[in-house]
């Protein structure tokens, strides 16, 4: 009975498991419904927003500035609690423009920084995102989508900010956009977002949506796939390469220069205006134009290593469904239903929306005739982006506004063909 009492209070259960005989375990199970077989699970009920906040901590985020907005406020609250415990700081800002400006400033001082918002806040941040991009300052912005346009529906989900997050720069530069579909993936891809921001010295958008951000679900922490946090590569005056170093310099398209924080012994010249490799404002100057081009080249050069997708291939399938975020989960259920009914279908979940994982998409399409792209917006935003890649296929959209696409809606649309 001593063992039972200990098990009931949940203390030392690992210890108990090692010493209890199978017989005792059986008795426990039979009389008390207590199972001793789950020692390798470390579960918690977490929302995507909470997991994003925890992932940020794991990634080494030290600074967060937030402005409340449904459905992203959970990240703000999460980091207000977590950052002081992890040698960081989270502050409240008076608007979204300030929130991102604070983050970019903090990152310029050398710390990993993040903010979180939704469509309306993103609209206000766009100028500052471009500033981070042109000054090559790492920063992560989580955009938890809700129904638009404008204020739209604060408590309704949507996948309508795909184009506005990506095409937020004058000049059309690629902003890396990651899009998890579960709370677990929110954790994992937040780390990835920070790593990309550091590796490529760029703003990175972590896209999610109301359903992923605010729905709580069971997460097994022992199953998290954790990438090693990427540290910022800092230049020091003692480095061997210091004499050739320039803050925005490069000798190949994929090269990313080491970073100098303001306040360090290496003078920083940063500007939101077009500048040369040293950061000096120069008009009609070939070097300046080369720097502007390199901003895009450095992302394109690393495109293949940024290609994150999950393919569920079925031999002989003539139909491929492509989705992401919350709708990727719907797609999985639909694929299971379709296969039960004897339909041969493959599916592809996109985690890296931008740069577009072109090769992975084309590979998944091989052997198929019909490609469906399911997304919770009425115009088929991602379909517009990838359709030109898929000229040799019949491309269809499965779209909806206001509520989640259901597994039946995908299944029925595909059966109708």
């Amino acid at each position, binding site marked *: 009975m001593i063992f039972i009492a200990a098990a*009931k209070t*949940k203390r030392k*259960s690992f210890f108990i498991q090692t010493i209890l005989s199978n017989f005792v375990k059986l008795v426990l*199970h039979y009389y008390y*419904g*207590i*199972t001793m077989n*789950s*020692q390798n*699970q*470390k*579960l*918690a*009920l977490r929302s995507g927003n909470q997991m994003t906040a925890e992932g940020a901590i794991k990634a080494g985020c*030290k*600074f967060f500035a937030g402005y409340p907005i449904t459905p992203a406020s959970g990240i703000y609250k999460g980091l207000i609690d977590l950052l*002081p415990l992890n040698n960081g*700081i989270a*502050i409240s800002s*008076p608007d979204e*423009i*300030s929130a991102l*400006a*604070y983050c970019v*400033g*903090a990152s*310029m*001082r*050398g*710390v990993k920084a993040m903010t979180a918002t939704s469509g309306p806040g993103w609209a206000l941040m766009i*100028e*500052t995102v471009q*500033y981070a991009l042109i000054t090559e300052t790492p920063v992560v912005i989580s955009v938890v989508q809700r129904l638009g346009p404008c204020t739209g529906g*604060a*408590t309704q989900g949507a996948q309508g900010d795909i184009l506005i997050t990506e095409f937020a720069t004058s000049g059309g530069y690629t902003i890396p956009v990651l899009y998890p579909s579960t709370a677990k993936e929110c954790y994992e891809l937040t780390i990835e977002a920070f790593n990309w921001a550091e590796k490529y010295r760029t703003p990175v958008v972590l896209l999610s949506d109301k*359903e992923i951000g*605010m*729905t*709580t*679900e*069971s997460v097994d*922490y022992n199953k998290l796939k954790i990438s090693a946090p990427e540290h910022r590569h800092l230049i020091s005056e003692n480095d061997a390469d210091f004499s050739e170093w320039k803050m925005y310099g490069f000798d190949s398209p994929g090269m990313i220069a080491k970073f100098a*924080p*303001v*306040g360090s*012994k290496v*003078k*920083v010249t*940063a*500007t*939101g*205006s077009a500048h040369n490799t040293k950061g*000096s*404002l120069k008009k009609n100057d070939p070097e300046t134009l080369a720097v502007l081009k390199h901003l895009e080249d450095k992302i394109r050069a690393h495109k293949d290593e940024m290609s994150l997708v999950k393919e569920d291939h079925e031999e002989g399938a003539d139909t491929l469904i492509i989705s992401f975020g919350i709708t990727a989960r*719907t797609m999985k*259920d639909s694929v299971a239903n379709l296969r039960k009914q004897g339909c041969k279908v493959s599916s592809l979940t996109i985690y890296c929306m931008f740069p577009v994982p072109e090769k992975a998409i084309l590979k998944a399409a091989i052997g198929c005739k019909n490609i469906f792209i399911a997304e919770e917006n009425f115009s088929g935003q991602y379909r517009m982006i990838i359709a030109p890649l898929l000229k040799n296929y019949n491309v269809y959209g499965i779209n909806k506004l206001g509520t*989640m696409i*259901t*597994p*039946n809606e995908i299944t029925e649309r595909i059966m109708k063909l």
Partner: protein
Amino acid sequence: MNTTDQCSYMTHGAVMPFCKGCGHSNILKKLNDALGLLQLDPHDVCLVTDIGCIGLADALFDKVHTVHTTHGRSTGFATGIAVADKVLASGKLKTIVLIGDGGSMIGLLHIVNAALMNVDVTVIVANNFLFGMTGGQTSSLTPEHFNTITSPFGSMNPSLDICQIADASKAGFIARKTATDKDLTETISEAITFNGFAIVEVLELCTEHGTKRNEIKGNMLAKMAEDEGHEIGVIKNSHARPEFSKKYETDVHSHKGDIKPHKYISPQFNHDLRSPNEIIISGSAGERVQSTAAMFTEAALMCGLHVTQKNDNPVTQGSGFSLSEVIISPQEINFTGVSSADYVVVVSENGLKEIQGQDIFNRINEKTIFIIDETLTIEKKGLNLVVLPLRRLCGSDKAAVGAFDYVIRKFEPFPHEPFKQLLAKRFGEYGKIFKEEFYNLF
């Protein structure tokens, strides 16, 4: 005293890019002198410049860190730099913003909040009453009757007193000077030394657009300000408020031990669930609908089940309906919505209205069990209805608790024990949470 030549933070022999007689040249020379006076290590100085003619200053200071920002946002970036430096880095950096009158208005909120936070940032507002770089348009700091190309008959509005705004924002150091003041260097150096937010508005003239349209000279600026009712000189120099990082240390950082990290669950109960159970519970705000759904999912988690919980309520969270969609499943859950409910639980009038509005009858099947409070009536025929005195026996605030308790005991999706434990932890002894009659309902 160090002169510009002895300790210059500017490029040696730099040519000022400004028009002849422009006040900006003077302000920047005085800033350079002030830095020299303080003998600051150039690596401990960050100049954050805004857009406009004054923003060209970054190219002139080649020894210190320079960050040339977007229009009006300079104080915002400076705040991030200063907070990160003081709380997370060396804490030695002096962050100085150079902004014009136009920029100070578009970025007023950043100035106000930096002052409220009392971050160690010095904002120098070069106020020449108009947008110089874009051709001399009127700004919010243009005095009434001042002539600009966009106020050819004189500006209609009085000018904003940004020092008063700073005062209302509890800034510790506030000064309004003119570009030709003999002691401008000293005032700027005082502002930089000030440990906390400082603002120095410097009145000056745009010789390209200002003096050509107005009968005005540099020695008339102080009088002009006074005519607008704006005070001149060092208006405030008070260390009454601690600088941001000090305040953060006492007000937040010292409390970090009070923040409880969340607990993990290692499942210790068994379950016999073979397929997912989908539950919709709908009731009123403030009656523990969503928090009880969370307890239910936690109990399911204690049995090693997969769970999802999706909540819905009006934007004003404390009013109207409150609804949760819960799925528990032995397998991983993909679609998180309830599309074919096993249970629909309705515990209040608000809850009933909401599920009828959400077209619930399209999300049920022939086996769906409806559990409703005895005070409610559902018109629809052919439902598997269980009518319970939930509100009467459990109280309106625990009707949802009773409903979940009933579902677990009656239909046994998983053992009752973990839910009982959670209830006891939250409400005290399980046997005393509800009226006795409730426990005999089964």
